[in-house]
């Protein structure tokens, strides 16, 4: 399906939905129109819960507060300043502005570097509690527990409110749908799947989360504004924790990560609540609660996928599905003139000066001092616990080391987070293959290119330009023939190769590789070795390699650094290291008598890196 056809199909469905909304008041009774107007607005807020939770992985209990922001802005302005068209605009501006301000504060608190998913949820849980208490204590200004009512509002018929709410819902749903299916929207899933890898691909995930959070806050505030205009009453419950969790319940029931599921979940449950709550209020709540627990435990994807999969499965029994679809992305080599990697700065590609790393009272690295030039392939060797991986971490993340300085391409990395180190030219491949498991090979590579090729907010790119080095890895390992394979189906060796090409797609100047050949077969190892030599010699990368296999090290390195108990004990050519008695002692384990006491009089206990 071409890009144009895909987008026109989405727009056609949206138009059909708009037609259904338009027909609504003519086929439904007055009571239903009245109730559904509210449900349509709630559904728009549930949509924002799905964007945050289902796609980005941020479980939020506080979206009710943004709805209340919009609603109270309208209520307060219309109560205290009278209703007029200019005041209506002012209220909308205040509502959205207030929501954005609150979202910015919450985002700053909840999405700082190193904040856990649980902490973000905790903040969104505290938010509605604080908001309701503030509304309660607002006296006559906010109307305290009874809220505000009896204010003037837009003079619209009930049908018009229904159409307005419905069109708003269709519009935000369509836009959200186009966004999450676009190249930019895929970043949300990537962050949910593997935030660490995203950061080490140079993406500022905190910023991304805050931006999505702000957009969701604005949507919620507009929905709340329309709600206040139509209901002409606002109450503190709108900002409450209970409403916040109800939104989560609707999202979970409908199906997180489906957009349409939460919309229908909210519409159906809220509408039915209004119908049944009068007669059986507690039984109805009990049914919803039970259903919610059941869905969370047994159908975590929600009910919409279950409903949709059943007919698809039946069809599948009748008509076997076609083999995997052809690759939707074509690869091409980036013109070397267009490469955007960091310009090599002055001096060595990597300069590590007097780096120390301590965990509490434990010193894991001490006095690490070396330089590496572009085109050098430096191997870091040493027994387990020598501090090799820790040193890699210190180079790729400015916040890691306890003391000392690290220059990459002539720039000091300071205390910069991983994504800023990537911007300076660092590329880090992890010890365990670290890719986006649910995304395809092509999608993983696209995300690695986001830093250089800004993704579209509404389209999917049909071609992907990769730097020569990444293309070379793909071609050598045959990954270029598996572009539409999901990463979790790849073999261990293929995953390693995929991660290597993702890192190379960053166009790094300094490549950090942590045991890139661990668990690979002899042939795969030879392939990787050849690639590394070429990267260093032809592309002029500075490669720093942690490796246990000394034969492999001997074959490919131009220089070897031996680490032992957190110190550099030898820095020289391959021949120096092979001839060294010291290294034999270190590896034979008798090093404790020979070196440790000599170089580190008070050798600290080792800690596994």
């Amino acid at each position, binding site marked *: 399906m071409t890009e144009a056809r895909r987008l026109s199909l989405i727009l056609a469905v949206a138009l059909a939905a708009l037609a259904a909304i338009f027909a609504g008041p003519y086929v439904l009774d007055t009571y239903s129109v009245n109730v559904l107007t509210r449900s349509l607005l709630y559904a728009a807020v549930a949509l924002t819960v799905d964007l945050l939770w289902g796609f980005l992985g941020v479980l939020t209990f506080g979206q009710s507060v943004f709805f209340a922001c919009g609603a109270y802005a309208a209520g307060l302005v219309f109560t205290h300043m009278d209703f007029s068209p200019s005041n209506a605009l002012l209220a909308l501006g205040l509502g959205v502005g207030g929501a954005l301000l609150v979202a910015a504060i919450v985002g700053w608190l909840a999405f700082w570097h190193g904040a856990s998913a649980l902490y973000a949820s905790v903040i969104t849980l505290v938010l509605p509690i604080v908001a309701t208490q503030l509304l309660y*204590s607002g006296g006559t200004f906010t109307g305290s527990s009874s809220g505000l009512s009896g204010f003037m509002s837009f003079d619209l018929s009930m049908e018009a409110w229904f159409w307005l709410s419905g069109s708003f819902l269709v519009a935000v749903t369509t836009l959200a749908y186009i966004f999450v299916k676009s190249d930019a929207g895929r970043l949300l899933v990537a962050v949910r799947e593997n935030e660490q890898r995203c950061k080490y691909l140079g993406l500022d995930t905190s910023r991304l989360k805050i931006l999505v959070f702000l957009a969701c806050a604005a949507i919620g505030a507009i929905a709340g504004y329309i709600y206040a205009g139509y209901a002409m009453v606002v109450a503190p419950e709108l900002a409450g924790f209970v409403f916040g969790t109800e939104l989560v319940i609707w999202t979970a029931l409908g199906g997180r990560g489906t957009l349409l599921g939460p919309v229908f979940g909210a519409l159906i449950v809220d509408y039915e609540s209004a119908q049944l709550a009068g007669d059986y209020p*507690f*039984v109805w709540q009990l049914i919803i609660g*039970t259903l*919610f627990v059941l869905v*969370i435990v047994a159908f975590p994807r929600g009910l919409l996928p279950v409903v949709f999969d059943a007919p698809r499965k039946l069809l599948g029994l009748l008509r076997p599905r076609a083999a995997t679809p052809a690759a939707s992305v074509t690869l091409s080599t980036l013109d070397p003139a267009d490469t955007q990697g960091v310009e090599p700065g002055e001096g060595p590609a990597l300069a590590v000066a007097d780096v120390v790393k301590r965990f509490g009272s434990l010193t894991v690295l001490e006095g690490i001092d070396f330089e590496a030039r572009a085109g050098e392939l430096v191997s870091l060797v040493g027994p387990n616990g020598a501090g090799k991986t820790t040193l890699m971490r210190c180079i790729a993340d400015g916040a890691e080391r306890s003391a000392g300085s690290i220059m990459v391409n002539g720039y000091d990395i300071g205390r910069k987070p991983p994504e800023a180190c990537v911007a300076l030219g660092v590329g880090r491949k992890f010890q365990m293959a670290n890719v986006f498991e649910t995304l395809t090979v092509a999608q993983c590579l696209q995300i690695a290119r986001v830093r250089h090729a800004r993704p579209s907010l509404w389209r999917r790119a049909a071609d992907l330009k990769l730097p020569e080095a990444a293309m070379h890895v793909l071609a050598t390992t045959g990954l270029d023939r598996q572009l539409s394979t999901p990463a979790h189906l790849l073999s261990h060796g293929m995953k390693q190769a995929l991660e290597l090409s993702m890192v190379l797609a960053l166009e790094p100047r300094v490549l950090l590789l942590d045991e890139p050949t661990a668990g690979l077969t002899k042939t795969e190892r030879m392939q990787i070795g050849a690639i590394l030599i070429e990267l260093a010699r032809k592309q002029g990368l500075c490669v720093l390699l942690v490796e246990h296999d000394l034969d492999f090290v001997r074959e490919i390195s131009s220089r070897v650094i031996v680490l032992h108990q957190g110190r550099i004990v030898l820095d020289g050519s391959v021949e120096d290291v092979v001839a060294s008695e010291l290294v034999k002692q270190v590896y034979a384990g008798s090093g404790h008598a020979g070196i440790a006491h000599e170089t580190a009089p008070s050798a600290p206990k080792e800690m596994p890196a």
Partner: protein
Amino acid sequence: MIAQSLDIVTTAAILYAVATGLLLVFGVMKIINFAHGGLMTLGGYAALVTTQAGLNPWLAIPIAALFGGVAGMAIERFVVRPLYSRPLDAILATWGLSIIIGQLITLAFGRGVQFTQSPLNGTLDLFGESYSAYRLALVGIAAVLGLALTALLQGTRLGLETRAVIMNEDLARGLGINSGLVRFLTFTLGSALAGVAGALITPLSSVDPSMGVPWLVNAFMLVLVSGASLLSLLFACVVLGGAQVLVATHFSPVLGGLTIAVLAAIILRVRPKGFARD
């Protein structure tokens, strides 16, 4: 001054009694049990039934523990066990259980606010100040709970295995510890403690089907800043509970109600480990 100090001590004691069960479950299972509030409500109604039946009000405590424990067993087996690998989902599922417990209680007892009989009435003279006897008794009860739990964790084989699971579950399992059983017993004990907490707070306030919810959030925040240690929980209860009392008396009760949640959020922002040591 003395009245205020007593307020702080007794508030901390109540918070401690309410949060221990949640802390135990969080420490061992890394799961936030949002059914804690519902289980407290259950304990509160167990106390109501006990006193309405004309039994000694002190009996409400073991009966509430029984109710909470039995409910906890069922919850662990059917809801929490499948969710060990999905901690955020476990929060949601246990919140759903809280709704279920609340609605079942509403169906059985109605929505209204009811009052239980207090096991201790009147006041005690302490440092020249006459103070609620029951609130003072709660300090003793909380101390007994804390000491008993510490003794259980430090002095018994089950406690040793539990601490092993807290530190490194995979290793513990490799050493032949039945971590599934440890989790089951922990959740049961945590739920029983929630029931006890519900019974303990009912004489102070009233009983209604959503009585546990306001306590849940405070207990949850206290547990998050305490990590998995009973000692740091005590510290958190005194500091944050104390702040709550001070804000409520000197500024406004509304702000006092927010103190624990807001302070805990800020503490966690500045120091993600909270009051826990490394």
